[in-house]
């Protein structure tokens, strides 16, 4: 597909204390012991890869960086080998710094409140059951590929008012933008062009006939002076909603099913105590947080006493923060009824995930419906789990037997 001879090489990490690589196969397979070891070394570690990048290893270091928009910009939020030109429009509000951030975010918050999610719940339950109908007679399936993947794709497509049947197209773009493009920048451009053309078509159609979906909401938005958003803002936000709404929750649902498949005691408990599900969802979000963000260091500063210099990126690892034993006793164990759980799976500070209520709805319903219909299941010993690489972590192959 791509000519790998012109791509930057990724020699294996030999010294994790002075170097790290979130695309290293060992990190991809099981990052938690790596983070645990690095956390004992320093609250912030560094690598020269990716043109220089820090990794905060503690909850407090992550919080400090997330709260400090003056020194740490969101104009770049993915750590790549190369630094492509910062897009003028980006993907508001995830790539926005104050003062542009707040108005861009406020526009998107009302469709994603818990009350708005209640209206969506019946459709999500129906999606889950339609998906299960497709494989329940088989006694086996790839739960990541046949279930976890499609729940969030179809739900966000429904909210956006685009065809749920185009799901595989959206998934391909996400793969290009979030995974392939870390090492091959051209993937980013190709996917962005196709997405742009696709949404332009939908925007045109709604100019002729408005609908009551999220695309129309964005088209109807007006700024303080009463002017509509410019096309690149609308496009950037649509791109964000599609990308942010898919890989992330797919990963959280998949990782939860993986945990339940290999932990019969927890699975049986959830079947016996359905009322435990909300607490269990928060613990699964903590232990298997899918999303790592990034920031670009704009000005020199210190984080938890560690000097941090401009020109570097920061891999803003909410998953590593959520494994910090200073905040979470037994941080490396899944404690399904954990009572004190101020986890940062949806971020900290102004960039708290807009979709957090949607993600919780999808995850809760996906697990409830699965457990209702498939209360007993286990990992297929003849298969292996494949984890996604890079910024969002979740199983992409998860064969289970039932």
């Amino acid at each position, binding site marked *: 597909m791509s000519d790998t001879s012109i791509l930057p090489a990724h020699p294996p990490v030999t010294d994790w204390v002075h170097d790290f690589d979130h695309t290293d196969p060992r990190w991809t397979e099981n990052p938690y012991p790596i983070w645990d070891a690095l956390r004992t070394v320093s609250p912030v570690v560094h690598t020269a890869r990716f043109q220089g990048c820090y990794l905060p290893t503690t909850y407090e270091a992550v919080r400090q960086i997330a709260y400090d928009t003056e020194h740490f910009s969101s104009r770049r939020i993915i750590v790549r080998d190369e630094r492509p030109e910062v897009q003028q429009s980006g993907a508001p509000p995830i790539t926005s710094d104050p003062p542009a951030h707040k108005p861009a975010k*406020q526009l998107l*918050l*009302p469709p*994603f*409140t*818990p*009350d708005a999610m209640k209206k969506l719940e019946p459709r999500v339950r129906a999606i889950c059951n339609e998906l299960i109908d497709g494989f329940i007679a088989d006694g086996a399936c790839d739960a990541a590929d046949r279930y976890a993947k499609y729940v969030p794709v179809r739900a966000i497509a429904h909210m956006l008012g685009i065809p749920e049947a185009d799901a595989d197209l959206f998934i391909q773009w996400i793969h290009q933008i979030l995974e392939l493009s870390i090492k091959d920048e051209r993937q980013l451009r190709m996917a962005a062009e196709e997405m742009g053309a696709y949404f332009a078509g939908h925007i045109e159609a709604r100019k002729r006939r408005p609908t009551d979906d999220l695309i129309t909401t964005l088209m109807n938005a007006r700024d303080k002076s009463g002017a509509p958003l410019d096309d690149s803002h609308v496009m950037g936000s649509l791109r964000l909603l599609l990308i942010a709404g898919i890989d992330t929750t797919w990963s959280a649902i998949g990782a939860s099913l993986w945990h339940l498949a290999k932990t019969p005691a927890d699975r049986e408990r959830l079947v016996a105590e359905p009322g435990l599900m*909300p607490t269990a969802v*928060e613990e699964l979000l903590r232990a298997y947080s899918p999303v790592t963000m990034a920031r670009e260091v704009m000005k020199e500063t210190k984080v938890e006493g560690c000097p941090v210099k401009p020109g570097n990126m920061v891999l803003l690892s909410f998953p590593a923060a959520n494994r910090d034993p200073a905040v979470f006793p037994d941080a490396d164990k899944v404690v399904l009824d954990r*009572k*004190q*759980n*101020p*986890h*940062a799976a*949806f971020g*900290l*500070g*102004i960039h*708290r995930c807009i979709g*957090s*209520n949607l993600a919780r709805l999808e995850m809760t319903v996906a697990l409830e419906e699965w457990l209702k219909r498939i209360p007993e299941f286990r990992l297929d010993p003849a298969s292996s789990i494949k984890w996604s690489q890079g910024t969002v972590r979740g199983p992409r192959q998860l064969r289970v037997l039932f």
Partner: protein
Amino acid sequence: MSGKLKVHVDPDKCQGHARCKSLAPELFDLDDYGNAHEKGDGTVPAGLEDKAYLARANCPEIAIDVTEE
């Protein structure tokens, strides 16, 4: 016996995680943006003290105060 408990959400810190609303719906409400505030003057009815502390403990932004009068 202890006095009355009151909860308060700092609106500058709240980022809309909505954990408080989920854990203690009797004590908190969300606005149209999904951000939280205490119901009424924040007085915690008898029997709901544990929920007040649970909400505080689970707010990732440390935006909730629980005070005893």
